[in-house]
Structure formats: C-alpha cells, structure tokens
C-alpha cells in the first residue's frame, strides 16, 4: 500500500503536466481542425479545411517535395557520418568517445546560429563568393548558392551529421569485438568482414540515425526561411505562413495534423527498431 501511495505522489505532478501541456493542446488541435475559421465558434464543425488541403495540388506536392528533401538530408548525413563513426570505433582507441564529442559539441551549442553562419558563408556578399573571387575562379559574385534548395540541404546536412553519427557509433560499439576476429579466422578479408558482419550488425544504428534526421526535418522551417529563398521553401514554411500572414489557423492545423500522421507512422517504425534504453544513450 505504501508503494502505491509513493507512486501516486511521484507520478501526480508529471501526469498533470503531461495532461495540461501536452495531451490537452494536441486534443485541442484535433478539435480545432474542424473549426470554421481562426477565431469563430467551434460549432458547427466543418470539413472544409480538410477538403481544401486534399483538393489542392500545391500542398500535397510541397509535402512530397519536403519529404524528398528530408530523405536526401537523412541519406547524405548517414553516408557522411558512417565512415566517421566507423573510423572512430575501429581506429579511435581510448579517446574515441572524446573525439566524437568534439564534433558533436558544435552541434549542440546552437541551431539558429549555425544556420546563420551558413547564410553568411553562402551569400553573394558572403565568404565563399569572396574566396572564389579572390582566387580568380569567378569574376562576379554568384547569388545562386544561397537561397536555393541546395543551400537548404547543405545546411541541414551540416546540422545533422553529428546527430547521425551518434547512433551509428553506439551500434558499432556494441558489436562484440571477437566477431571480427571470428570472421577473419574463417577466411574473410576485411571487406567481406565489413559486408557480412559489421554492416548488418550496425543496421539498428543506421535506422535510428535515419529516423532521427528524417522525422524532425519533415517539419523543418527555420533553415528554409533563412537560406532557402523561394526555391527552397518546405512544407513547414507553408504551415508557418497560415499562422503568420494567412491567418487561417484551421488550415494550418490540418496541415500540421497531416504532418503528424506521417511523423507518427515513421515513429512507430522507429520504435520497432530501437528501445528506450538506446535512446537514452543518444540523448
């Protein structure tokens, strides 16, 4: 009985918090998606925003394109992060975790500021242009690097590589070291050991890395806003617009809910691959 009381005492505050500031807001969101307009009455509920969303080719296309950008970002981040994690695990020695942390710390310190840094670097008044001109490779400043979809992807990859490296690092670290000896012992050269043993056993880490990059990037809006220009707009910007200028909150909510459904699907897939304990090491 005592245990129950203690449990109740400990769990009540968190539960209230989760209820008030998480469950209720999202329930409201679901509810308000049926609202007629941003500030009017709740009744009668209407499906018109849902209809508007699915009828419009634009929104769906933007969603698909943003998914594609998110996918590319995740893919490139993993391709760049994997060799890093691999090298650190197998050649990094005692300091491998520290070496990894050295690369992750800039990632943790700032998000907006690093996007800002890229904005500065990529711009026509920016550093990359300056360097190119200095060396005489171009005669005029090119504005095209900045404010493009490529700029968005480059910046996002820059943001995400450290975060992608962590789960891959963790899963490589978990592989029992004797397995490599065993594979080599049975006749496999280093390449075959990699494809037969290392790679398959690091798939949980790769999957985790993929989801950790893909899911948040689906809802990304800050990077496109700063370096994307017109070309690089993503789904998140469209949502944000509804709350800024469009003032069509219900539509924005519908768009968010659609995003949430997609995120949820991928999240469920994610949970099938890794456990909570794994996540804590990544946190």
């Amino acid at each position, binding site marked *: 009985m005592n245990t129950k009381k203690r449990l109740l005492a400990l769990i009540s505050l968190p539960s209230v918090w989760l209820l008030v500031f998480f469950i209720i807001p999202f329930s409201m969101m679901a509810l308000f998606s049926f609202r007629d307009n941003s500030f009017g009455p709740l009744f009668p509920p209407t499906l018109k925003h849902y209809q508007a969303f699915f009828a419009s080719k634009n929104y769906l296309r933007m969603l698909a394109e943003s998914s594609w950008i998110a996918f590319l970002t995740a893919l490139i981040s993993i391709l760049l992060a994997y060799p890093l994690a691999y090298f650190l695990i197998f050649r990094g020695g005692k300091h491998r975790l520290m070496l990894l942390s050295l690369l992750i710390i800039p990632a943790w310190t700032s998000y907006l500021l690093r996007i800002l840094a890229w904005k500065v670097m990529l711009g026509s008044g920016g550093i990359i242009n300056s360097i190119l001109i200095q060396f005489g490779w171009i005669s005029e400043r090119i504005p095209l690097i900045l404010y493009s979809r490529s700029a968005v992807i480059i910046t996002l990859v820059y943001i995400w590589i450290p975060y992608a490296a962590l789960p891959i690092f963790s899963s490589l670290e978990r592989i029992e070291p004797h397995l490599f000896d065993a594979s080599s*012992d*049975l006749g496999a050269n280093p390449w*075959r050991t990699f494809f037969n043993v290392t790679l398959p*056993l690091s798939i949980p880490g790769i999957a985790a890395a993929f989801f950790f990059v893909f899911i948040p990037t689906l809802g990304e809006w800050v990077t496109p806003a700063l370096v994307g220009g017109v070309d690089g707009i993503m789904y998140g910007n469209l949502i944000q617009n509804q709350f800024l200028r469009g003032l069509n909150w219900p539509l924005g909510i519908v768009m968010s809910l659609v995003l949430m459904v997609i995120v949820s699907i991928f999240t469920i897939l994610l949970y099938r691959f890794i456990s909570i304990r794994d996540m804590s090491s990544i946190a």
Partner: protein
Amino acid sequence: MAQYSVVLENVRKVFDDDVQREDFAAVDGISINIEKGEFFTMLGPSGCGKTTTLRLIAGFAEPTEGRVIIDGMDATSLPPYKRPVHTVFQNYALFPHMTVAQNIAYGLKIAGISRDERESRVKDALRMVQLGDLGNRKPAQLSGGQQQRVALARALVNKPAVLLLDEPLGALDLKLRKDMQWELKKLQQLTGITFIYVTHDQEEALTMSDRVAVLSDGKIVQIGTPHEIYSYPKTYFVADFIGESNFIKAQITHSDSDGMTANFANQNYRFTCAVETQQIEGDTALLAIRPEQLVLYQDPKKCKSDWCIPARVSANIFIGSDERVEVALADGQKLRLLLRSSEKNQVGSYQEGDDVFIGIHCTDIRIFNQ
C-alpha cells in the same frame, strides 16, 4: 610434406602501450614443435602468455620477434584469413544475426563452396556435434553448451589443418565441462586434426592432452606428456601448479658421491636412492611429495617405507571414498595425505592428536630450490 604441424621459433611478443609498464613481454622467447594430429595443450595461470601465443598462431597478432610456421609455410606475416587454421573462441563469438546453420556455413561460403555441398557439410557438422535439428535457431536461443558446440562445428566444417581452442569450456558448469572434455578428445581422435588447446585448468590439461606445455611469465617451463609433467616436474612452479604437492623445507647437511642427507623435523634423513633433482644452490631445499604418495602408519614397526617420520594428526576430512588427513611434523611443518578407502590404512579412524608415522619412498621425492 612438412614435418610438424605448427612450429614456433623463438617467438616474442612485446606490448608497449601498457599504462604503467614500459615494455611488457607477454610472450618471451617461446619455441615449440607441434606434431601433426597431436592434442597439444598450453597450460598456465592467467597472464602467463598462453592466450597471446594462441593468437599469434591464429594471426590476430604479429610477433615482435621470431617466426610462426604452419604446415611448413612461414605464416608469420599472414593475416588470419590466409592461414589454414581455425579458432574456437572462449565466448564462442557466434554471429548473432545469422542462424546456427549460417554460422557454420560462413567459412564455406567465403571459400566459394557450392550451395549443395555447403548444405550437406553443414548437416554433417551438426550431426557430429549432436545438434542435428537446431540449424534454424539463432545463437541467442541456445544454451551455453549448445553454443559452444556450434562454435566447434563452425571451425571444424572447414577441415582446417590446425584447430585452436581458447579455454572453450570455461563458461560451462562442471558436469557439462567433464562431458565436453571427453567429446573433444574423441572428436580430435576421429578427425585427426591437430588441436592446440589453451587452459588454466590443469586437470583438464592432463585429461585430454597428448602433450602439455606449462607456461609462466611468457616462457615455457616444461613440455611433456601428462604423465611426465605430473610425475617428473622440473621446477617448483610445475610441481606446485600441477596436482597437489607437499613441500618440506629441509637443510641438505651432507652431500657426497654416496648420497645426500636432509635435515628436517629435528631429524636427519638419508636418501637411499638417486633423486631427481634441480641443481641445489645453498643448503636449503624443498622436498616435494604428492599427498597420495604418503603412507600413514599407526604402528612404527609396520612401516615399510624408506623414511618413517613421526607426526601428529592435526585435521582430517572424510569424503566417502577418500580421507584427507593433515599431520604436523616435529618442527611444525604440515603434510597433507590422501588415503583411499581400499588400502590397508583404516580409513576414518584417525583423530586429531593421534601420534602416527608417515612413510615416504625415496623414489617419490623431488627436490627443488626454494
């Protein structure tokens, strides 16, 4: 045709990244010739270099000095995947993402063997280790003993010239371990493959091996058959490590062409035989004798041994078929005896405080430096 299966020529392995020591020679000048089809065991306490030596033969490490020759070929710089040698690891190292059958087939697949032949050889291997119907399970679903047998099958299915075993039975419980010792011995005799076995369990080594090498501090202390190692230990270390020994501290008071005299327990005892001995430095020595070689008499007139030493019983433990009796000599030194119930000694009748006589045969004594 190479004469020996594996030859180690003056092999040294020095590790230089130890935290506190500058240079640590894990293997310090080892030379061995291992015969084909031999069950050869490297025995020693942990840290003696036996596992490092095994890894040098397997190719997981390169010697700092010396050569490793396998089947007549200098394999010193060859990586493991190019050596005709396979290893059974201490914790089995089974690939967790593959089934038992896939694990066993791994080496065959790498070697490019056709699928049909792979399947049949895997089936044979499974049968050989008595795991016939477990081919589709994953390693995590098997018990320790079963995993160990998969590891064995995985190595043997490739028909290596040499099989290396790194304390493979260490994680098994006692009964299973004893059963597996028999199995391994039979397997080795059946396949005729050279087995090189590493263990710290001297009983295990004596049970299974054709020859045993006792290692200490990176060096070989003695090589011989189990019988040789047990009955004719060359150093104090071997006498102490293998089986049980009593060590009597004695003064060698007299030594000439006729023989030697040892003084202990306030008496002089003369050797009536030529004794197996190390070069004795100084005049103190250790006389080693095994518990089962000591004879216990209550009546001194019945004592038929070369030496009859008075002693007092200080402890005894009765275990059913055996009795272990500890006695104290006149100078306080203790001896342990092992009495079998089938002997003329009356078992179970010795009480603490009893005055008895210990019989020692001269030819059973080994003398070592302290």
